């Protein structure tokens, strides 16, 4: 992939990933074949801020964990009344970082 496309991707998708991972992502993109560009673009990345809002509103039922794909933790959170209310609050602080992690995992599955 040429540098212009990689930079464009980084610019438009910077908010979905951890800042310290961006240089590594750019390196990976440069090594990736051009044919994968459409696939990389078409993945639905979760918005961290939106997940925080969902966590505040519906975290009590584990909805945030379900949406980002941590099904096991989602069910556990739902069963225990949001982890007795403690987990709900803990997740307000963890969910954004976790969302970025999940986005990175999605990208890594394509880029390798």
């Amino acid at each position, binding site marked *: 992939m040429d540098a212009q496309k990689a930079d464009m991707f980084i610019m438009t998708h910077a908010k979905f990933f951890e800042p310290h991972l961006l240089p590594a992502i750019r390196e990976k993109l440069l090594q990736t074949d051009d044919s994968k560009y459409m696939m990389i673009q078409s993945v639905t990345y979760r918005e961290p801020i939106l997940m925080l809002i969902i966590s505040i509103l519906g975290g009590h039922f584990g909805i945030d964990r379900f949406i980002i794909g941590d099904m*096991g933790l989602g069910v556990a959170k739902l*069963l225990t009344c949001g982890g007795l*209310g403690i987990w709900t609050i803990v997740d307000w602080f963890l969910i954004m970082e976790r969302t970025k992690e999940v986005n990175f995992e999605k990208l890594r599955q394509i880029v390798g």
Partner: protein
Amino acid sequence: MTRKNLYFLLLFLGIAGQIWIVYSYIKLEQQEDSFNICLFKRVTSLPCPSCGTIHSIVSILHGDFREALSENPLGFPDLLLVAIVPFWILGDLVFRKETFYKIYLRSVEVLRIKGVLFAVLSVIFIIWLYKLGQALGWI
């Protein structure tokens, strides 16, 4: 989720849950009502699917299974989770194994199969309807 993050999150929550159960047990023994921590119930004054779990767990600890079932059937899986998971994780950390993490990954795979998650959520939804019925006087 990495193994380390998962273990520390669940270990912290498991120990907090155990402390909360012991505290509620003592409170309920003294016939005092433990204070209501359920955000959903505070906001809407309606019960959430897992309201009544603590009363249910205390009933189980007293050996009164029928009372536990009528309070909230989710008390049984919750008590199992809180009783087993922290010790399992501690065991894994001490012996440097990954048994719990592997089971967790497997459970996530099973839940991703179409229908399984739907079945689990349906059961919880039925329990919620039952709790709502109790609270609103339908049953």
